[in-house]
């Protein structure tokens, strides 16, 4: 088994309260299913939308990193899967895909030092 992070990207700023509540229930169900199948290594953490970016030798600090709601990474989780293809397959059940968001699947490097 290998480990992966899922980065949840995109923020739905127009949904109605009722849609959001239904959407939340889908997340609960999805994580429950992942947990039951032993694929959820760690729920992970939500990330604040606001932050700062420090850049370059001059250490220029700007607001950021996201100018647009669709680019916002709103959180991440740690997943266990056989390989990248399997991790991608599992990610297809993520409810964020139903509201215009995306999941970035990134293998955590396996390093033997």
């Amino acid at each position, binding site marked *: 088994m290998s480990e992966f992070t899922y980065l949840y990207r995109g923020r739905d700023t127009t949904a*109605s*309260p009722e849609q959001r509540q239904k959407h*939340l229930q889908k997340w609960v169900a999805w994580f429950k299913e992942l947990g039951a199948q032993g694929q959820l290594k760690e729920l992970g953490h939500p990330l604040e*939308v606001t932050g700062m970016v420090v850049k370059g030798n001059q250490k220029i600090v700007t607001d950021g990193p996201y100018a647009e709601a669709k680019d916002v990474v709103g959180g991440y989780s740690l997943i266990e899967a056989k390989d990248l293809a399997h991790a991608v397959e599992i990610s297809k059940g993520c409810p964020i895909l139903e509201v215009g968001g995306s999941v970035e699947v990134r293998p955590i490097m396996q390093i033997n030092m």
Partner: protein
Amino acid sequence: MEPGDHLFRRESGRMVAALTRVFGVHNLALAEDVVQDAFCRALEVWRIRGMPENPSAWLIATAKNGALDVLRRQRTARTFAPELSRFLRSEWTLAPVLEELFAANAIKDDLLRMMFSCCHPRLPEPAQVALVLHILCGFSLDEIASAFVSSHAATERRLTRAKKVLAGSKRLFDVTAPADFSARLPAVHRALYLLFNEGYHGASAETAVRAELCREAMRLAALLLEHPFGSTPATCALAALMCLDAARLPARVDASGNLISLLDQDRSQWDQELIVEGLKFLELSAKGPELTQYHVEAAIAAIHASARRIEDTDWATIVSLYDTLMTMRPSPVVALNRAIAVAQNEGPERGLEEIGSISNRDRLAAYPFYAAALGELELRRGRCQTAGAHFRAALALARNPMERRFLDRRLSACERGDTRRAYYERFWDGRLGSFANSDPHPSRISPDSPAFSRE
């Protein structure tokens, strides 16, 4: 933890109401933005970390922090609620004042303030109802459009205009002034009544949506009842009407979504608790000299509710109650209801006679249950062919699959020659509120205005 039914929607109303109180009604759009942000944040946290112990408190606290943020950032650029401005300007008072404004009791008053503000006399009734649903009940534009079987564009126009009027009013309605309160109260009653009826009799195909509209109307009526100026006999009468009608909801549609007429309903399915509550409100409504249409309609509903079998229904009293209603709020739909009650009491011929003498009958032409009522009475007197023609006409006007299936069944009863009486239900069509006024003053709000027009 599972969120309660429609928790998000309810909290949306509370948050918008509280934020608008702080920001001022002219900043309604800003309040809505802060609420959207609070929801986004809640979703981002809850989807990963799960629901908190008290999700309402979490959301309200998030909205409060959002307000703090906005107030600090935009203190110089914007004006906020004028009556609070001196508290909001100073860092010394800002946080404690917000703490107070977001306390549960304060928010209850905010909801009432908003309810009365939405029923602004410059707004036509359908717009008032749409605003109430949108702001206080958290329905989105599309959800309102679908509940009222109206187009997205039409609902958007209505809502945008209504919000503009609301945001343009100097301040939120002052619920602490008794004279203003009682002057606006009838408009609030009317809006809740329309909301309830759109749920009970409306055109939406989804039973669940419609039950939700009824429930929202009852929830808002309960808020009125809690307020010392709000719990008038008329409010009690309205609450009685809602309880007694809502009690029949479980029996009104069968498991496969078919409409069941009052004559065929399994009365053991009626909600006895709601009936008891309704009768209690009806008793409370009898205090004082005022007699409103809600009193009369609640009395009619009470007669139905207390008849164990359809045969036990006191139709004579119902007819006389409709007579009273006709003097208070004449409309072709009320007249149609009355005619059907007459038919129950004195036979189908008399009912048809009564229908024939309804003035402004032409206004009923597009209402499917007008043709259906004619069909029903013809069927009862054994004229199956004539009845069938009426039901076919009704079918062509049906507004959703549920109505279509119902009328289809009635049509096949005609074709089988099955003349058993089968049909009685109170009629309602928001568009047909009253025919008394072919309004000479277009600026006046007409109860006649095409409620929830199907554009």
